[in-house]
């Protein structure tokens, strides 16, 4: 459905993505994992064309068989990719309802929009209660729900989420993830960027691991979960013991 080939993205003189390629199959939940500064968010922004106009410098991005790496953001949205930005980015001085309606900005069918509003309220009942409130007054979790609901309003085929768990309690994180799975079961393909590797591996069907602007692992979550490096550096499970019984100096990552 989405295939990214060999893209390179630069921030002025700094190369953030060193030529990465990956593929997303229809109906999947794909997770893009990695630590701070690995280039996960840059990847999503490159796909959405939110960076400078001449990015990506190299490589191609294809969505449903059509190249989108030189289209405007607005056209990409119309083609069926929806994006939930990191840190929610709701419109603080619009009401919840107006925020949701903005999500349907590209659509003209009033009836369909009404139906989809009901679907969104079905996923997030709390938003219905808050429909008339200013979005800036919502709690962090509610804002995240609003951001996801808003992104669903364009009836996307592919939904890209940038750190949906950012700043949320473990309980809320679980709730958000189970809703993401619900959305997926209704036929929306999902690309997920996460630092919360544990959660992401639990819910995804395929995962890519990024380091320093490169993809270093690509596998099914069951396999990655058992990987020694992933365990130690992302899940915090394995702590190696030296002969003498105290923790050895931190091992270097082997990925390259």
């Amino acid at each position, binding site marked *: 459905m989405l295939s990214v080939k060999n893209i390179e993205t630069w921030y002025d003189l700094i190369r953030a993505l060193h030529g990465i390629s990956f593929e997303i199959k229809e109906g999947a939940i794909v997770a893009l994992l990695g630590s701070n500064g690995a280039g996960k968010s840059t990847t999503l922004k490159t796909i959405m064309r939110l960076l400078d106009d001449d990015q990506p410098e190299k490589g191609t991005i294809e969505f449903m068989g059509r190249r989108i790496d030189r289209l405007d*953001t607005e056209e990409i*949205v119309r083609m069926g990719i929806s994006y939930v930005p990191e840190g929610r980015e709701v419109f*603080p001085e619009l009401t919840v309802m*107006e925020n949701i309606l*903005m999500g349907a900005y590209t659509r003209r069918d009033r009836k369909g929009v009404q139906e989809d509003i009901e679907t969104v309220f079905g996923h997030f009942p709390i938003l219905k209660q808050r429909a008339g409130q200013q979005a800036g007054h919502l709690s962090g979790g509610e804002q995240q729900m609003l951001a996801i609901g808003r992104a669903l309003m364009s009836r996307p085929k592919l939904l890209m989420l940038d750190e949906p768990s950012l700043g949320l309690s473990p309980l809320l994180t679980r709730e958000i993830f189970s809703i993401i799975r619900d959305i997926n079961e209704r036929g929306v393909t999902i690309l997920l960027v996460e630092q919360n590797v544990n959660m992401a591996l639990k819910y995804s069907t395929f995962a890519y691991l990024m380091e320093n602007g490169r993809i270093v692992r690509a596998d099914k979550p069951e396999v990655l979960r058992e990987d020694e490096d992933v365990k130690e550096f992302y899940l915090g499970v394995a702590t190696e013991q030296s002969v003498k019984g105290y923790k050895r100096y931190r091992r270097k990552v082997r990925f390259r």
Partner: protein
Amino acid sequence: MIEQLVVEGLAIGACYGLFGIAVAIIYKTSEVVNFAQGEMGMVATFVAFHILTVYHVPFWLAFVLTLLFAAALGALIQTCFLRPAKDPTVLGLIIITLGAEMLLMGLAGWKWGAEQKDFPFILSVQKTREIAPGLELNEWSMGVFVLSAVIMLILFLFFRYSRLGIAMRATQQNVNAAKVMGIKVERVFAITWAMSSVIGAVAAMFFAARSVLDPNFMMEPFMRAFAAAVLGGLTSIPGVVAGGLIMGIVENVFGYRWPEWKPIVAFVVIVLILTLKPSGLFAKHFVKKV
């Protein structure tokens, strides 16, 4: 006597408010203070003057044609001058508007000359009507009150209920998120400039009817309307109008008592506001929640 001064002050204040709205609309969307606003209004007024004196069409037709011209002019300046700016900073864009101002002023001087003209406005400042015992109101003031009320009502409904209006507010609050919603933000900016230019042109024609028409005539009203807008807080439209009304009353009452000081009242007010409450009297601002 004082009632008369207040009413006249309110009328000129409504006119400041109207022009202040034009400044505020652009400021709200992009944080750019459009210094070409006055000259955009001036050129539009000259176009009205030209249509009226050369083609002798009825005033209302000329008025409508002028507003169409103003809309085109606003959109044109945005697309030709501001959009191509590479890596625009707010300061850079403000300088661009200053450049546009000088360009428009030169253009008007070249086309219509620097000598002062009378703008044949339909509402006269001289014809008055007694609305209450001892209280007179001229046609011009009535026109200002009615038109500014109508424009405010339209703006309120537009920003509250129309899709484009809400999209404009969304763009103000978060450009990147607006892009992600599929809003063509550049088009939104062009429409903003067109709207602002139209409102500014209406106000400029009223100002021209009170004074004379020459390429410099909008300088002072612009500065005062800007002061009024700052007084009310540049981000809220009702605030700007309230600021305009306050400014009009203060200026008129003060100017009656000490006529030689009248021209500087506006600037004293602007300095006071910027030192005491820089966000303006009525501004509300949303601090981003992390």
